[in-house]
């Protein structure tokens, strides 16, 4: 399990307007591209060096491709990162204020305390 890499995906996509749009429109292509090109980039570091060992599990990759925020929660992805990115992608489809945010919470209603561990 690579919670860190899930968080890294959510973090790096959320901060780039172009990647947010690509993830919304073409999640399979974007996730595949990101894992090949960015998963091993050392952030906040000069270019030319890279990590060699980071990759998603099949389950994690499927959750990202499926925009499956419920599974991401279950896998221990940081809920702040998931929420922020998913609001960026889907709030625009709201027909009333906070519609997406409330539905996002409702889809998680079956989780009891304690929630899945988010420690990386």
């Amino acid at each position, binding site marked *: 399990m690579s919670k860190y890499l899930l*968080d890294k995906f959510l*973090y790096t996509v959320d*901060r780039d307007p172009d990647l947010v749009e690509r993830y919304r429109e073409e999640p399979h292509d974007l996730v595949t591209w990101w894992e090949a090109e960015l998963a091993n980039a050392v952030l906040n570091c000069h270019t030319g060096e890279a990590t060699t060992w980071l990759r998603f599990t099949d389950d994690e990759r499927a959750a990202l491709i499926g925009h499956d925020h419920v599974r991401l929660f279950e896998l221990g992805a940081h809920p702040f990162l998931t*929420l922020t990115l998913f609001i960026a992608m889907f709030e625009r489809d709201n027909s009333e204020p906070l519609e997406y945010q409330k539905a*996002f*919470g409702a889809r998680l209603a079956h989780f009891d*305390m304690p929630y899945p561990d988010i*420690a990386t």
Partner: protein
Amino acid sequence: MASIVAVIASTHHPFYYRATTATGADRPPFADEWERKILAFRETLTRANPDVLVMVGSDHFHQLWLDNMPQFLVGKAPFYDANWYNEEREFGLPRMLLKGQEDLSAHVLRAGLDAGFDLAFSNELRIDHSITCPIITLRPEADLPIVPIYTNIFAPPLPQPSRFVKLGETIRQIVEEWPSHLRVAVIGTGHLSLELGGPRQFGPHGPDPDFDRRAVEWIATGDLDNCLREVTLDSLHSPGNATHGFMDFMLMMGVAGAGAKADHVDTLDLFHTMEAYFTWYPNGAPS
């Protein structure tokens, strides 16, 4: 020596700016009351006539990331750019540029290290809404130099609640020992009960009104004994999955001092969270 002319603790609701700048049909029904409370809160800082602001907040995965995560970090720079693309996108927050009080940053770092806190530092820090929200609510002119102090309330493993209190007590002592004639206000923001990205988010109130009631009482009366007895890293999961931000309130209780009753206390029950505002005057209320 410098004097601490006000200690202020507050929630940092990123929707305030958009809610209170909206007009007509876009203006939410709660905006007028919210703005009234903020204007009264702002007056508590204005009356103290500060020269410098020490600002305690927490980076929301903007500049600080899991590959290199500090527990406590002090900004030491002549300027701080502020707010990020995703805060502009989601909250409509404006880009800002704040001046830094670099000599006080250097003093806090040196004295903090000598007092047993191995503080990280940053010479190029872009701050986020945990610090700009109180600038917007308390000092919208954004004309005073700041010393930003970031805490990790976000990415476990986190420091213990008692460590936040101790850091607050240490900041109080360090600032009061700063060889300067300047008037300093220490302002920190955190959360009461809060859920983000979980099943209890965006309800009609904060996720745990009972916790909020007790928390406001602890802060308003400086009741660190009961607060520290009840609050643990584990217990903070129950009021809501983002409630560890309450530890920044505990830090500010440390700055204010055990048993210090707040001179200004106000709350606002909003959807999603309880807002809470506190001001202490360590040297007596300004006339």
